[in-house]
């Protein structure tokens, strides 16, 4: 396969960025998207040019590091797939492919396709945990969790924090990410401790980090590589309303 790439190049956080054209030649349809970029980078290095900087880690679709917008869609055109698991067979020979970093005020570009997504970590640090004195180790089944609740909690826990929801949202909102974390814990008995405080602290942190507000476009759900649903945002909204009627926000 021969492809024409338009790749976002930006030397640093405060430098201007622009799309530059590259030819990707002799690409195998069995390569992953990141392997295709590896081939292009090898060519650039041989020519003595600066390779394209992009983030990657596990290349198994579970770390959520490969933050790229491909032809206007975070993680590319294949549903429920991260960039590293997107294969070149989903493109056609001769295609033009636009590759950009995630754009949002809360995700400043570090270099080329690499963005700083640590704002999501700070939202987690604000309340995405359970902090309670538990005493000695309890018996395995001392705290019973109904299967249906466990299923929903595990669905929410699938979120890998990649930030595609923020990249796709016209408002740059991290509501789907925050909702997945809130819903994950709110569906488990252990998460009831500090639930009121958690939803307030995390949504406040989201605002303070410069993310936008959710206005229910549902773009986040459409691009989420792990299929996190907007019903978790409804759950977060219910948790928030409950928190306003709770006097003790421990």
């Amino acid at each position, binding site marked *: 396969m021969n492809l024409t790439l338009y790749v976002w190049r930006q030397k640093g956080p405060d430098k201007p960025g622009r799309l530059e054209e590259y030819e990707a030649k002799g690409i195998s349809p069995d390569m992953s998207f990141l392997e295709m970029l590896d081939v292009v980078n090898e060519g650039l290095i041989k020519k003595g040019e600066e390779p394209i900087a992009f983030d990657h880690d596990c290349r198994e679709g579970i770390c959520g590091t490969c933050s790229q917008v491909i032809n206007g869609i975070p993680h590319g055109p294949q549903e429920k797939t991260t960039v590293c698991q997107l294969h070149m067979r989903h493109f056609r020979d001769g295609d033009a492919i*636009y590759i950009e970093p995630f754009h949002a005020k809360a995700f400043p570009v570090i270099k080329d396709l690499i963005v700083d997504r640590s704002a999501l970590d700070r939202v987690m640090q604000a309340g995405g945990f359970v902090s309670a004195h538990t005493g000695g180790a309890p018996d395995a089944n001392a705290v019973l969790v109904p299967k249906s609740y466990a299923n929903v909690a595990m669905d929410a826990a699938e979120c890998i924090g990649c930030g595609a929801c923020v990249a796709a949202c016209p408002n740059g909102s991290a509501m789907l990410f925050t909702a997945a974390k809130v819903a994950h814990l709110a569906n488990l008995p252990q998460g009831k401790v500090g639930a009121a405080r958690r939803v307030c602290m995390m949504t406040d942190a989201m605002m303070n980090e410069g993310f936008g507000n959710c*206005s*229910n476009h549902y773009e986040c759900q*459409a691009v989420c590589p792990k299929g996190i649903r*907007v*019903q978790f945002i409804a759950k977060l*909204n219910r948790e928030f*309303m409950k928190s306003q009627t709770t006097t003790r926000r421990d």
Partner: protein
Amino acid sequence: MYLLKNSVGRKIIMSVTGFTMLTFVIVHLVGNASIYDGPDGINTYAAALHHNSTFLLAVRLTLLGFCSLHVFFGTLLTLRNNAAKPQGYAVNKSLSATFASKNMIWTGLLVAVFIIYHLLHFTFQVTNPEISAFKHLDAKGRHDVFTMIVLSFRHLFIALAYVCGVGILGLHLSHGIQSSIQTVGLNSRKIFPFILKSGMILWIIIFLGFSSFPIAILTGIFK
């Protein structure tokens, strides 16, 4: 007040104020449908409304307050959202966002302009004083609202303004109804398709209902 500062709190205010105004719009449509009962129908309805002036004033002030909150927080949220996404992509693709969802601020402000015109036209009766119901009384000595409406909508420009106005309101509601339901947390995987459909059906009823009045008059059903 914490609710006014938090992102979700502000959205809940948008949802509650929006739903209250939607309820008023539905009641308004049902009340106005009395025009199909002839001059006596709508004139009796109008007289009954004005009979309890304290109640009417309370409803008007509540709606004014809710409308102001809706406009204020809608503008605030939009400005913040625009600041959070200062840069778009070279290729723009929407997978589920709609024209209505992306233009809520503009359809909302146009609806506000339409409401101001509507109030000046039918409530304060200053835009077309020659057809004012304040000046014309029916056979029973009541304000002749029926004649005022019929004479108004015989003007093509006024009729078109109303059809466009309720059309834009419909566009606003096509996103607003389901968005409000989601915001107050009344959503689950099972009922989500129903919420999307019910919102769609409701805004079509509201649009067709309100635009039927000027269309019926323009086409000569009422004379």
